[in-house]
């Protein structure tokens, strides 16, 4: 039993879930057993809209293996106000910028389904 088990169950069902405190409604990420605002142990999973913006980013690439496929690692600020580290796909690394609007999708990577992000479609 780990505090983040619910998160990965959600991901396996194509859902992005965050803990929401039952007492003060504060969302938290990364997961934890207790609300940092009010110390309540009561929470429930809250399904995020899956939209947000890029706050910070790097390109992850092995410096010695030039054949290594790079991944953009981005710190996403979700519309709900929590942050999540993920990858940004379908976008050129040199054009990533702070505030880029993104949306979640789910993809299996190295045998594990993960939340991934891509530029938000217009109107989303």
């Amino acid at each position, binding site marked *: 039993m*780990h505090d*983040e088990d619910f998160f*990965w169950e959600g991901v396996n069902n194509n859902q992005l879930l965050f803990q929401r405190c039952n007492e003060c409604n504060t969302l938290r*990420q*990364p997961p934890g057993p207790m609300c*940092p605002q009010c110390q309540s142990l009561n929470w429930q999973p809250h399904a995020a809209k899956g939209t947000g913006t890029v*706050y*910070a*980013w*790097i*390109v*992850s*690439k*092995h*410096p010695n293996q030039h054949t290594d496929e790079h*991944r953009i*690692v981005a*710190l996403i600020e979700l519309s709900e106000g*929590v*942050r*999540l*580290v*993920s*990858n940004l796909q379908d976008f050129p690394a040199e054009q990533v910028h*702070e505030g880029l609007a993104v949306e979640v999708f789910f993809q299996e*990577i*190295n045998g*594990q389904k*993960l939340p991934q992000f891509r530029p938000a479609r217009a109107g989303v």
Partner: protein
Amino acid sequence: MTSYMDRTAIVGIGQTEFSKASGRSELQLAAEASKAALADAGLTPADIDGMVTFQLDSNDELDVQRCLGIPELRWTARAPFGGAGASACLQMATAAVASGAAKAVLVYRAFNERSGVRFGQPGTYQLRFPDFHIAYGLDTPAKIYALWYQRYMHKYGVTNEDLGRYVVVAREHAATNPAAWYYNKPITLQDHQQSRWIVEPILRLLDCCQESDGGVAFIVTSVERAKDLRQPGVRVLAATQSHLQGGNIMFDYYRGELADFSEIGAISKQMWNSTGLGPDDIDVALLYENFSPVVFMALEGHGFCKPGEAKDFIKDGNIGMKGKLPVNTNGGLLGEGYIHGVNNILEGVRQIRGSAANQVPGAEHVLVSASRSAAILGKL
């Protein structure tokens, strides 16, 4: 002064060579460095009754005790975290001596961090999978921290070339420090800019600290005892930690504005308040840098310049030996070696004693900052 500070001193320092392949056990490195610290202080093993090291250190206190022939230990403590706890070791030793829990505390840190378990390689950080970071490609410290530095560099318009200007100074200092891994090997800004990218466009190879084999040790005892010992004692004017709500040692992504290293500001406030000193009183600053951007955040956080101005502070020549604030006079962890930041405490002691390879004349106050723990050393 109401704190327990100001009643203790560092009376002995010892170290092994800093290398890439020590050819001996981590325990031997710890024992050699500790023996050297005892000899430096003029103390015997029977004088030591306390020990402090890192939570991450592989050397069991009782094994070190057995090596050195210490009859009885009455105090042990370990500093949490990695390099962020370097100056916390000093705080723990100081608290023990000031409270009477121990009379003399040996602090050691020793590892084969290049020939043994390398910190810089993927896979060193064993977490369950999937997780919130490594699964996405943040698999080395360079990448983990670069995601945070990116925000700093973006907000203040800092370029990798700006980082290089710090590295050139650190390597200049290392070049004239015979104990440094990069002794006699200064670099130019061009060398820095031609070194390969580790995380483009944040960190190049020469922005990264060494992976080093080596051991360091120092001894803390009371100010009264220090006066009778072999070396000029070095007073611990402040040694403290700061950990703020929502922070995280390696994956510090989840709170507020990431461009400002809030703990550095908070720890400075504590130290300026407790000592009555300020940034202008500091003669030498030893600033922990696993990667070069930390120096920039530390210069700003400690108040040596304003937020976003570290790049100009460095460019204007302030951190060299003849500058307003010589920084990392031993060459830093990039140039001297990476003994998890504890080697900077030894350099602080040498600066106050007046025995450093790159001595700042008349240094009276030295800041040894590991960002989340920090100390100010002064004369006895």
